[in-house]
């Protein structure tokens, strides 16, 4: 039996990423408006809801990575390496510009966007790495 197709992997990954983004936006809206003055335990519970979606997304990626054959694993490795380097270098560049008082980036925004940036970088790098072996 042949290995799973990249198309199904992409569909499942995009679905998981979409659920994550939708959950995050919903939670942020809830925390800023209806739950702005709610009890801390409730705010913490709602605020951590995106972790479930992230957990699902990570499960999808890990399952696909383990199900892949040797070429697919190599592509994954290259994509992860490129994404980590690009996001790391981007973060460093931004932090240097913040230190130089050229731009202002809140720590909150930086923390929230780290994982999505890594995920988007990984997807883009995976498309690039896949094309290298066509």
């Amino acid at each position, binding site marked *: 039996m042949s290995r799973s197709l990249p198309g199904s992997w992409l569909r499942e990954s995009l679905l998981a990423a979409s659920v994550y983004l939708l959950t995050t936006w919903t939670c942020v809206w809830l925390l800023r408006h209806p739950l702005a003055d709610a009890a801390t335990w409730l705010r913490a519970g709602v605020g951590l809801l995106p972790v479930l979606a992230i957990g699902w997304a990570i499960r999808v990626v890990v399952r696909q990575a383990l199900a892949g054959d040797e070429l*697919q694993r190599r592509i994954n490795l290259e994509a992860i390496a490129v994404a980590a380097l690009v996001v790391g270098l981007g973060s460093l560049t931004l932090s240097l510009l913040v230190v130089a008082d050229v731009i202002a980036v809140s720590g909150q925004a930086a923390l929230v966007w780290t994982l999505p940036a890594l995920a988007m970088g990984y997807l883009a790098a995976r498309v690039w790495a896949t094309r290298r*072996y066509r």
Partner: protein
Amino acid sequence: MNSRLRALREQRGWSQRELAGRLSVSRQTINAIETGKYDPSLPLAFRIAREFGEAIESIFLFNEDDT
């Protein structure tokens, strides 16, 4: 590394997908090996050789340029 994989596969009338199924790899891997963009691991090269009933060195042709 050059290989005779495409020629051997076509001799048997197999599609890339069919050969991928026989070897439990993706069609993408078969295509990458055939186009010389990916060199298979030794275990996969052995499985390919066994599938076609030939020796590894008769399927995969080493070039000095590959080093």
